[in-house]
């Protein structure tokens, strides 16, 4: 395909500059997004199994609610009924609940003993999964403007540029696309290999990237967009306002739990109920949020769909699943969410999204490397902007991953030391991140890349080792039998440990045996290297 030269050059510049400006924050957003596909599993993995109380048979829930609400005032307003095996049957907030990050959220768990007695305990909730999700949405940029996170706004703007970068990337790739699509030239130098793999990954995951770019812009700016739409709608209301009920309800009027399951069965097909979250039970505005899942369907989130209704009269106020044939827009809107959150194709879909997220992170990382490569000078010491960008890329990208891995690693140690875990997670992340960033700038990109990769490999290796250790330590009663998903997390940590080790070896090889006039080259150490290496590097 032929495209005019000036168009190609225009879009090549656009691609370069939008890419280099947004690459770093998007890198964090993508790899953390990969992890957030397994947010619940990570929280479950991190939470000591002794925090959860044993499940009860389905017909005992009404008895449990009655006993809990007559013994605890808080349980007369809000509580959550869980049907999942590894969660407590009934929980409610004691302190520190509410919206947003809940670092000091203390929850009371309740169950019934075999004799039918109420058993409760309070625990600080584990927010590790939520923190990873926050990292995904904000790239770790703290602060708020009004009720909106600064990081979310910044990622929203980055996503606009990322959309432009995607489109410009296709435009200037078109003339050579057919010829070099599957070309992965390893024999034409590292530069060519990075370019080929950057293009290959970009093209094969293009639909995914367009979806992500578009949805992130909407997630960041939907309030603004609705504001504009209200002008379009004129006198028509944007949202139907539910009529304000004057009826005051009390908890003793609450229908049986089985009636909700029956209602969901009537409304939907093939869905199972995961949990019922009741709120405002003794007020004029009661609500129950029902989480339902069906791995055969396209779900709004990877964790399920929602129905919100009045718990006393079963009137549905909001639902993410289609309720009747006339309702054409609900599934369309739900599909946008689903395509971002990977809520389709069940667990296979989640793993695919996990991999695509990592490939996305690779796309931004390799993009930065290509930018550096393109501005390389034929001299041993590269220009100052180049060195700065290289240090920043290594410090931010590898530093952020190291910070997350270190936080995962320290999680079980925090519990063994019996300290406030959630605040320490946050402290641990930022401490490691900035330490790595400072290290990158003080030791240079090449050396710090090797060292951080080694550190990553060791930290990943210690995650399963820590788990093994908790089996031997006296406090190990904290963790009972490991569930399958937790075992998978240990396994994935091992795989990544090997991958980072391999990365470190390759980076080291590049430093001593690669192109000497490069930002990644290191002077050959005379003691440890043999003569032939010296000959190679001086040639």
């Amino acid at each position, binding site marked *: 395909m*032929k495209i*005019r*030269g*000036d*168009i190609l050059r*225009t*879009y090549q*510049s*656009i691609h370069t500059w939008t890419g280099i400006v947004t690459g770093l924050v998007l890198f964090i957003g993508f790899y953390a997004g990969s992890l957030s596909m397994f947010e619940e599993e990570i929280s479950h993995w991190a939470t000591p199994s002794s925090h959860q109380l044993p499940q009860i048979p389905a017909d005992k829930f009404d008895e449990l609610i009655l006993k809990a609400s007559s013994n605890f005032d808080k349980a007369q307003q809000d509580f959550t009924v869980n049907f999942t095996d590894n969660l407590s049957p009934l929980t409610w907030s004691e302190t520190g609940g509410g919206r947003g990050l809940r670092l000091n959220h203390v929850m009371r768990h309740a169950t019934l003993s075999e004799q039918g007695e109420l058993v409760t305990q309070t625990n600080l909730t584990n927010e590790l999964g939520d923190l990873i999700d926050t990292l995904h949405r904000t790239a770790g940029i703290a602060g708020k403007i009004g009720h909106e996170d600064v990081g979310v706004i910044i990622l929203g703007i980055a996503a*606009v540029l990322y*959309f*432009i970068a995607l*489109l*410009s990337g296709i435009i200037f790739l078109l003339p050579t696309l057919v010829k070099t699509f599957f070309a992965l030239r390893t024999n034409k130098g590292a530069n060519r290999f990075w370019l080929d793999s950057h293009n290959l990954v970009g093209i094969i995951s293009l639909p995914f990237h367009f979806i992500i*770019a*578009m949805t992130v*812009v*909407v997630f960041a*700016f*939907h309030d603004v*967009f*609705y504001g*504009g*739409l209200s*002008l*379009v*709608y004129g006198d*028509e209301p*944007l*949202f139907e306002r539910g009529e304000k009920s004057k009826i005051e309800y009390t908890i003793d009027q609450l229908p049986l739990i089985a009636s909700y399951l029956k209602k969901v069965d009537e409304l939907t097909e093939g869905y199972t109920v995961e949990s019922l979250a009741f709120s405002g039970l003794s007020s004029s505005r009661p609500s129950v949020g029902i989480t339902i899942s069906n791995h055969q369907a396209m779900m709004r989130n990877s964790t399920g769909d929602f129905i919100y209704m009045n718990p006393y009269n079963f009137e549905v106020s909001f639902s993410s699943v289609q309720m009747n044939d006339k*309702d*054409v*827009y*609900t599934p*369309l*809107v739900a599909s*946008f969410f689903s395509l971002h959150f990977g809520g389709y194709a069940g667990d296979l879909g989640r793993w695919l999204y996990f991999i695509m997220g990592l490939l996305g992170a690779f796309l931004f990382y390799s993009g930065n490397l290509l930018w550096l490569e393109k501005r390389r000078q034929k001299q041993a010491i590269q220009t100052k902007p180049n060195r700065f960008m290289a240090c920043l890329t290594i410090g931010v990208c590898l530093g952020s991953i190291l910070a997350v891995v270190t936080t995962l690693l320290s999680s079980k140690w925090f519990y063994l030391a019996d300290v406030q875990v959630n605040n320490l997670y946050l402290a641990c992340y930022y401490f490691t991140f900035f330490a790595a960033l400072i290290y990158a700038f003080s030791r240079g990109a090449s050396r710090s890349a090797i060292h951080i990769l080694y550190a990553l490999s060791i930290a990943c290796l210690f995650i399963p080792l820590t788990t093994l250790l908790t089996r031997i330590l006296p406090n190990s009663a904290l963790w009972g039998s490991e569930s399958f998903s937790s075992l998978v997390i240990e396994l994935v940590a091992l795989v990544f440990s090997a991958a980072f080790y391999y990365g470190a070896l390759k980076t080291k090889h590049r430093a001593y045996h690669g192109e000497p006039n490069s930002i990644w080259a290191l002077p050959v150490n005379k003691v440890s290297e043999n003569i032939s290496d010296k000959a190679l590097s001086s040639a």
Partner: protein
Amino acid sequence: MARLSADEKIQPHWWLKTLAGTVLGLTLAYAIVAIFAWYGPGGINAPVKVQFNMWLITPIWLLVLSLTYLFKTGIKAITYLGAANVALYSLFFFLRWLS
């Protein structure tokens, strides 16, 4: 293909084109969404349609913004996008006036 002379080629005009694409691209997206909201399937009051309308804005806006750099000059970008805006909003208000 004959070689283009300097003034036949696309001029960079980054700031002007970006401004045109960002502002006029967004208003253009709103114009298209406005027509769809009132006269698309289901009309203005179809349930959940307001959310779909909100979702429509972004892809249209970003597509226009990305392609704005194809205009030869910044002034041309503003002129053409401005004209498209005027045309679509006229159509919208005409339809509103009819009904």
